[in-house]
């Protein structure tokens, strides 16, 4: 059980970095380590990406390794597949969650199936980076949480880091991974800072950070979440502690395949589980976690699993998103519900 290094942690001996900068550092490190690593997407070059995650990379690695593409997501993903066939390790950027769909056919029909189809004779080690989630006051299609859909597609790994450190480590591991990885970045955390220890891990092809992690220990109730909601849930756990409720917080980190071992272990102790995500609930990761945990730890559960998520609606106009996105109060309410029953 590891707990995260948070800002102000006495043992942190590294300078704080924003989430976006940590990702940028990971890309730089990966590109330095392996000259087959390419970055491609819309505006990733001179502009450095709309979130500046690729800032400065084209200047340092050249136009051949940091490639501004025409405006077409199927084109980006589809050509990345071909580049991967050729031995490159493309890291593609999709500008916003809502713009991944034109490329979805290539993801489902090629990226996810190439290895299976060819019995492993062909592989597409590529990363599809997708900034996701709400809370930035944006217009339509810029705030969505589509990760559950990707989890239903067999043959791709789906992961999401919650902290700058994980952003750095997991992106390096995603790039080194021989499976295709869809990498969801919690965009509203891009500007949050925390110390990041750089270049600490080797880039083996078995990702060690693609595993669930206990972010806070507690014995009364388990709350499972990931991505942008981790911070919200930790705040809720803090608030609950004031009421003497000890919340164990687990960050999934890998959304597909899921790593439910730590969750099951926790639930066997607490007997109570809340699953939190920003995404609509229907046929989602929260459904999957609830279904599997219930199936495998039914007799440990003192109460039914409670889910907290976005509503089953399109993403609303941004001025109402504070009411749409699960905040601390909703998490606390679910904790209450699971404790009361």
């Amino acid at each position, binding site marked *: 059980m590891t707990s995260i290094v948070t800002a102000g942690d006495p043992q942190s001996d590294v300078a704080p970095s924003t989430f976006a900068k940590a990702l940028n550092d990971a890309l730089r490190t990966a590109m330095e380590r392996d000259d087959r690593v390419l970055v491609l997407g819309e505006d990733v070059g001179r502009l450095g990406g709309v979130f500046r995650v690729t800032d400065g990379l084209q200047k340092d690695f050249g136009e051949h390794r940091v490639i501004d593409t025409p405006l077409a997501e199927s084109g980006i993903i589809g050509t990345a597949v071909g580049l991967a066939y050729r031995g490159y390790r493309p890291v593609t950027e999709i500008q916003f969650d809502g713009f991944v769909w034109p490329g979805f056919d290539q993801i489902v029909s090629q990226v996810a199936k190439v290895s299976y189809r060819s019995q492993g004779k062909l592989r597409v080690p590529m990363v599809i980076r997708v900034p996701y989630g709400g809370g930035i006051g944006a217009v339509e299609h810029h705030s969505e949480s589509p990760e559950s859909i990707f989890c239903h597609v067999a043959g791709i790994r789906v992961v999401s880091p919650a902290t700058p450190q994980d952003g750095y480590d997991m992106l390096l591991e995603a790039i080194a991974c021989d499976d295709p990885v869809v990498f969801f970045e919690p965009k509203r955390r891009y500007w949050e800072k925390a110390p990041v220890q750089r270049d600490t891990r080797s880039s083996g092809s078995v990702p060690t950070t693609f595993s669930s992690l206990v972010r806070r220990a507690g014995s009364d109730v388990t709350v499972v979440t990931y991505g942008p909601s981790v911070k919200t849930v930790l705040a809720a756990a803090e608030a609950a502690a004031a009421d003497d409720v000890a919340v164990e917080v687990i960050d999934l980190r890998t959304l597909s395949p899921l790593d439910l071992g730590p969750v099951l272990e926790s639930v066997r102790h607490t007997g109570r589980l809340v699953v939190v995500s920003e995404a609509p609930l229907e046929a989602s990761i929260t459904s999957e976690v609830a279904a599997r945990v219930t199936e495998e730890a039914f007799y440990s559960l003192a109460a039914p699993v409670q889910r907290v998520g976005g*509503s089953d609606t399109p993403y609303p106009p941004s001025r109402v998103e504070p*009411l749409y996105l699960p905040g601390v109060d909703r998490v606390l309410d679910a904790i209450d519900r699971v404790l009361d029953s």
Partner: protein
Amino acid sequence: MQAKTTAVEAVQQASRRVEVAGVPGTAVMSGLRAVAADVESVQLLSPEGERVEHPRFALDISAEELRGLYRDMVLVRRFDREGNALQRQGQLSLWAPLLGQEAAQVGSGRAMRPRDVAFPSYREHGVAWCRGVDPTELLSLFRGTEHCGWDPRATGFWPYTIVIGNQVLNATGYAMGQRLDGALGHDHDADSGEATVVYFGDGATSQGDVHEGMVFAASFDAPIVFFCQNNQWAISHPVERQSRVPLYRRASGYGFPGIRVDGNDVLAVLAVTRWALQECRSGNGPVMIEAFTYRMDAHTTSDDPSRYRLADEQEAWKLLDPIERVRVHLSRTGQADREFFDQVDRDADELAARFRAHCLTLADPPLERIYSHVFVEPTEQLERQLADDRRFVALDEAVPMNVSTQGGHR
């Protein structure tokens, strides 16, 4: 004209590439050589404000109409600038400026008849204006209080479409419907025909949906004008990287006419769009128009163009300003006097004030908005979720939601 030079140069460069290949153009060859001979934009009013004759696109226009176009452009520019300012002041979360594209939008917008329908992208505030959308109705989207603030059916101006290219197919389908309805081909009754105009950018031309729109439109003879505002940039990506050759040439690959117009010349845009619409209404659609223009401001208020383009370029394009040339022409030919120009400026100020005032009145939507209009009838599931959520509205959030407006919209 700097624009022309740039384009011609680009083509010459592309053309050289073929010569390297050493393949003289023959009858069976398509590609660069065949098309690179000359790139010419239709122009009816020079940057210096002189009327230019064009053999194909004569335009008889009254002084009143001309003044109307001028007024349109000034007012549109004025509220566009106000939109930018409102964003800077934190009243909008985003604004997508049209600065520089007034002629392309007003010229094409004014070419439409009431029954024609426009499918915009997200920057067509000038077209909205021509369709009778009150500028204040554009605000809610950019403030984040609504996704679409106007009535699409009443105005014939469809909602802004943010996913690049989507609207091209929707518009094509609409135009297919116009044809199925028998709403065209009535040359005897000039007012009865209908057509569709779909707007998209130079960057959008790379998207599969734009291609499929053109394939379907050609296949079904849809009465649609593909109106591409080539403003030279797709955020930081210059048009030369989206295409080796001028964009209007795409049309030839589908077998319908493509034409480039000086997009900073409101008269040329008006004349060419009128012609194209009449073609469509007569059953000879589709037609593609490339309006060659320039995005004078940032992509959106979230963008910083100094990272990817030189100020020089913008300076050069200033000389081609769409409003200035009409102003010069109107004065020089005595079709408008000082009083007219002053009145337009006053109207613009008044509009801007009303625009701003309205913005400040836009309230945040209630919780119920989240659950409205997902389906025609609310479902049991959504009603349950709404009821559940109602419990939280009264409460203050224990910890703020962390909503920021920082960075990177679109």
